[in-house]
């Protein structure tokens, strides 16, 4: 399962509406890279494949390929704002560590 916090879902809807993307879902991926080895990737998409796991959180469809899902099961995606910036934050129970900026993790 992958979930959005209410604040993250609200932000996703806001971005989706501002871009005129209708009811597109959120694609969540893991890529190799970043200081700790793996990094997160988010973008809108309206197509899925048979290799995808699909979820819905606060009305937002979420699509995850099976390779990425092994690193993402149980993830909660939050949206945080602070003096040093704003962005989506991944709370990943499978991450052994994260880099200083939080954009990558090790598993």
């Amino acid at each position: 399962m992958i979930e959005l916090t209410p604040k993250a879902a609200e932000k996703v809807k806001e971005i989706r509406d501002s871009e005129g993307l209708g009811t597109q879902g959120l694609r969540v991926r893991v890529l190799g890279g970043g200081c700790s080895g793996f990094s997160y990737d988010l973008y809108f998409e309206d197509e899925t494949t048979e290799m995808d796991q699909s979820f819905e959180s606060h009305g937002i469809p979420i699509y995850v390929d099976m390779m990425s899902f092994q690193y993402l099961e149980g993830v909660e995606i939050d949206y945080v704002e602070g003096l040093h910036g704003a962005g989506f934050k991944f709370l990943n129970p499978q991450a052994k560590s994260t880099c200083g900026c939080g954009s990558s993790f090790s598993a």
Partner: protein
Amino acid sequence: MDERRLAFLLDERVLRVHGDDARTWLQGQVTCDVLLGGPSVHGLVLSATGHVITDVWVLDRSRSGETPELWLRMPSRAFDAAMKRLDRFIVMEDVELEVTELRVIHTLGRPTREAYPTARLAAGPNADGWDVVVSDAETTLAELEREGFARGDDALYERLRIEAGKPRLGPDFGEHTLPQEAGLKSAVSFTKGCYFGQEPVVMLEHRGKPPKRLVQIAPLASSLGPVTVGAPVTDAEGREVGTITSATPEAALALVKRRALEAGELRLNGHAVPTRVVE
């Protein structure tokens, strides 16, 4: 023997990285900036703690409009460990790693034939060095001999390397060495963004100092007696502050404590020796 016309078969292997995401994926795996372009760039594959698994030369072999293809040259001794480390971080990217049979020949003096796949000033010990990456090393070596190149052996290559102050994976740096300790900063881009193992390297660069430094000790006076790998380097008070990592009769490389280097002279066999930090 004319040392300006020598050919050495290097103990290196070549990994082929190809796929639509090859460049951007590799950018996150090695320390050098592979997106800058150019035929060849020196970089490092690091562990999570920022220590060096291997150094690599990244050769961009992509042709315009075709799927990106890069070759990673690296010492044979590190190939399996580097391959394992790199393969672990391919998730959903369109990237494939392929072990090749390509070999690397280093020449002192530029080969005249234009048919060689790659010839470029690169990793060798001499400013007039060129690297040739080929599928059939013996045939190319025979062609080079016909061009007037003599075949050099490993011992001569090592002598030239050490006297030029070039560190080598294995004797001079490796899994217990940080890039800044081994004079490998030129293989690290501090502007390209994130790559695996970046944080310890950047923290050391901006907040600290390397605990050790690689130095070249040259010339070695005959009064020093034989200098061998593993021999201790001491400070003026006779305290051991480092170790010889590579040596020839003329020059040596040693990994020494930075504080001792900053404090004053270093000694070998009780004699003060001239040192130069490898940068």
